């Protein structure tokens, strides 16, 4: 049994499917024959993706507990879950707003954990299911202006290690991906707070240059596939060599 071909007809939920990475992941998984259910906040963007891929969808605000429960009620038994929703407030700590910190920790850390909790309680995860959470290279590095975001991703990775141990007896796996600079809307939004020159300097730290959403999508597909059956509780850097320096 090889890699991506094992995704055919696998039931996979992609949360955050309207974002730059989430939509790329959904589209990539679709090409590998996965049976997708996509979710996101932007109804219009979600409809476009769902229609393009011919898959079921549900638009929701993940911070709303009842809407989250309705998602869990709606999906059938799953072989995989991808959590690609998130926000990235960029500001030195002394100018971080309460709401920015709360939203960041909620959406990046609490919600993926709560979502898996609810899926487990309702027995919506099949034996052997694979959970993939989108982290970031920021989780293990200090970067001025990214305290809330880095904290949220480091906590997510820590939670993944614990959850991986809890689910191993059911052959379920939990892993994170840690992308570096990827050309997406979130990266562009962050770039608005960093000068073009500073961004160009940062990009020089990537031996393989900036990444594309498809690079993250392929790594996600790998972690979801049978090819990664013995990989759990880890964080896979997808960063063009950024973190090895």
């Amino acid at each position: 049994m090889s890699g991506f071909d094992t995704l055919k007809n696998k039931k996979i939920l992609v949360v955050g499917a309207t974002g730059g990475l989430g939509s790329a992941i959904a589209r990539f998984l679709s090409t590998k024959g996965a049976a997708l259910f996509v979710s996101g906040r932007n109804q219009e963007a979600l409809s476009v993706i769902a229609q393009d891929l011919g898959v079921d969808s549900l638009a929701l605000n993940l911070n709303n507990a009842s809407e989250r429960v309705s998602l869990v009620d709606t999906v059938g038994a799953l072989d995989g879950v991808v959590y690609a929703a998130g926000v990235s407030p960029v500001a030195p700590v002394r100018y971080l707003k309460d709401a920015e910190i709360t939203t960041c920790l909620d959406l990046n850390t609490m919600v993926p954990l709560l979502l898996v909790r609810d899926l487990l309680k309702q027995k919506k995860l099949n034996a052997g299911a694979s959970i993939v959470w989108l982290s970031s290279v920021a989780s293990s590095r200090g970067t001025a202006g990214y305290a809330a975001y880095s904290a949220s991703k480091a906590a997510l990775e820590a939670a993944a290690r614990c959850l991986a141990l809890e689910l191993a007896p059911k052959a379920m796996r939990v892993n994170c991906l840690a992308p570096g600079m990827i050309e997406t809307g979130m990266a562009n939004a962050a770039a608005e707070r960093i000068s073009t020159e500073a961004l160009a300097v940062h990009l020089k730290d990537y031996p393989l240059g900036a990444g594309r959403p498809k690079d993250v999508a392929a790594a996600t597909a790998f972690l979801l596939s049978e090819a990664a059956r013995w990989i759990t509780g880890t964080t896979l850097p997808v960063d063009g060599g950024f973190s090895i320096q």
Partner: protein
Amino acid sequence: MSLQRFIEDFEEAVEDIEPNSLTAATNFKALEAWDSLAVLTVIAMVDAEYDLRLKADILKDCDTLEALYARVTG
């Protein structure tokens, strides 16, 4: 909201700037303390104090604090 208050906010935001050391005519980009972290911090300060999401590249168009204040309040 006033230019003087904005200058004080700027002085407080950027590290190593002494209070009351800057004027409306100060070329802030020529300051020794002006670096990528200062850019990030001033943008965050404007967002927090003036409720405006300033793009980093807009700072390039301004030389003096008075010009920057005009962009913030304009």
